[in-house]
């Protein structure tokens, strides 16, 4: 891996930030997206070497990693980088980072903070209205020219007055609640702990939350505890008229069970931005009009990517200037995900 540019010698002094795989922003907008005069990128993915060899050969003095959902930071990777002190991630989730190993090594993690909360919440509302009012299905109906021949479209279900149950009342969950209240929905939630100063009814377990709501919204992190949290029991409690929306992580749901419930009409419908084995999506869902699917793009807006750019560059520049990070994660607070 050659030096970046011999005609700009000062660049060769710039500290490296390791990238294992290009984040979505690089793929969509180009790899100059996070350019800075304070650091340069070391792109492991441009090397033919297997990762371990690459790290041993080139990353021994690298202090920072820029990670994304598709570029996990495992204990193995961390152990091959003796000077690693910072992991910055472009994703909302932290489940792809071995937080225990980071805690053990005193490595700081900088997250996406709350930059994505509005877009995620907007996606939840978009999916929920779409499922209840059959927006995507009706759009297909009209665009296939079926309105003139087939007449009136089947009725949907009113959003107003629906009981909404939010799993995970963090930044995203709170933004969802604020929006849905304006539509006349009532809000209740389940979280690791009851939130003080929060007037929404709290349910200690998700099954009970599901039994008492019409729309279950998944907004929590993926951890060991939340893996397959939404299982047969919860879906059964949600019931025939219930709708589920997942913009969090695919593995929080038992996908096989969800597909079975949808195919057999045991729940009313689902809005899904995430899946267990992205980008593979269970084929059975393609035949269903009561399912709305999006390709894990709940935060993929121009505006969020610009906010991300500022945040990532801001965090990395702060780190290399020995200034406080913009969005450090308090690692003691984070539950474990063994991946």
């Amino acid at each position, binding site marked *: 891996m050659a030096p970046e540019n011999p005609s700009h010698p000062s660049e060769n002094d710039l500290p490296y930030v390791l990238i294992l795989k290009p984040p979505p922003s690089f793929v969509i907008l180009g790899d100059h997206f996070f350019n800075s005069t304070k650091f340069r990128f070391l792109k492991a993915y441009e090397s033919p070497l297997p990762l371990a060899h690459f790290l041993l050969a080139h990353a021994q003095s690298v202090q920072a990693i820029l990670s994304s959902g598709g570029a996990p930071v495992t204990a193995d990777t961390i152990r091959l980088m003796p000077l690693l002190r910072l992991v910055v991630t472009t994703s909302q989730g932290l489940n792809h980072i071995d937080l225990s190993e980071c805690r053990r090594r005193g490595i700081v993690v900088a997250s996406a903070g709350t930059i994505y909360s509005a877009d995620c919440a907007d996606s939840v509302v978009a999916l929920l209205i779409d499922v209840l*009012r059959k927006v995507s299905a009706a759009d297909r109906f009209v665009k296939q020219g079926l309105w003139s021949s087939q007449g009136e479209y089947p009725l949907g279900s009113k959003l107003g007055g629906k009981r909404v149950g939010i799993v995970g009342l963090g930044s995203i969950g709170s933004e969802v609640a604020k929006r849905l209240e304006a539509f006349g929905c009532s809000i209740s939630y389940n979280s690791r702990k009851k939130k003080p100063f929060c007037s929404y009814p709290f349910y200690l377990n998700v099954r009970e939350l599901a039994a008492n709501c019409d729309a279950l919204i998944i907004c929590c992190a993926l951890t060991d505890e939340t893996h397959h949290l939404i299982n047969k029991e919860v879906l059964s409690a949600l019931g025939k008229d219930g709708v589920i929306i997942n913009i969090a992580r695919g593995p929080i749901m038992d996908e096989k069970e969800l597909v079975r419930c949808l195919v057999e009409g045991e729940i009313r419908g689902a809005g899904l931005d995430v899946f267990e084995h992205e980008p593979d999506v269970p084929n059975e869902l393609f035949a269903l009009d009561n399912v709305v699917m999006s390709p894990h793009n709940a935060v993929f807006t121009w505006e969020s990517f610009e906010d991300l750019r500022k945040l990532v560059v801001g965090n990395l520049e702060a780190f290399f200037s020995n200034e406080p990070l913009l969005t450090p994660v308090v690692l003691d607070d984070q539950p474990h995900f063994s991946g």
Partner: protein
Amino acid sequence: MESIGVLMVCPMNSYLEHELEKRFNLFRFWTVPEKSAFLATNKNSIRAVVGNSSAGADAELIEVLPKLEIVASFSVGLDKIDLAKCKEKGIRVTNTPDVLTDDVADLAIGLMLAVLRKLCESDRYVRSGKWKKGDYRLTTKFTGKKVGIIGLGRIGMAVAKRAEAFSCPISYYSRTEKPEIKYKYYPGVVELAANCDILVVACSLTEETLHIINREVIDALGPKGVLINVGRGPHVDEPELVSALVERRLGGAGLDVFEHEPEVPEELFGLDNVVLLPHVGSGTVETRQAMADLVIGNLEAHFLNRPLLTPVV
């Protein structure tokens, strides 16, 4: 009341038909092969007409029914009823306000989100298997966008309330400014369009508001602007809208209504910045039942000499 003839002009709701049949002598106009002959035979027994957003009671029909006392519309819009003629002849008119306000406003926001975030296109992308080849492209954030509302009646206010929860600044155009309302008022639609990101049609259809969305308004809204129509098709100069969308002079559109329903301009079918719905603004089980109950309630009240529930005339 079983001898009272009620003429339902088009199919609209089977629960409503069923309930009307229990109480009145219901005539289903759309099943009649020879309409003029039918009217000649039955005109003296028809005392009520039930219409909706597709068909109501125009001057011609009113003239041919000498015993007509009441027109009950299964809609809040009254553009298919000749109100002046009804007033002239002392015919009562009722509609279905309030019960459908939430559903229409919900759908308006749903359309905004679907257009800006390309939700229907994202769903198509997944269903086609394209996701395996790469991510879908970036879309436009909805939170914080400026929403301009034409018509700040029940539905307009409900749209505003919802959009505010997404931190959208609200502005509006109305026949008169409403001083008690905190939203920014624009005295003209072109000015409103020039100053918002998303323009929503939520006013009633009258002679004044026919083609209220014309070339000038569309130009003012511009290549980044989005038009949402949950009013009536004729609010929009449809050919102008179609060419603006095809030529990308307008950023996008979410349309629940069209000038000649159920005909929809086919040029729109392939556009990824357009969401098209088959006039489902009030189309939920809950709301259609509430609307039907209002129609029945109004007719019963009239024929029992009680005050009408939701009179317009």
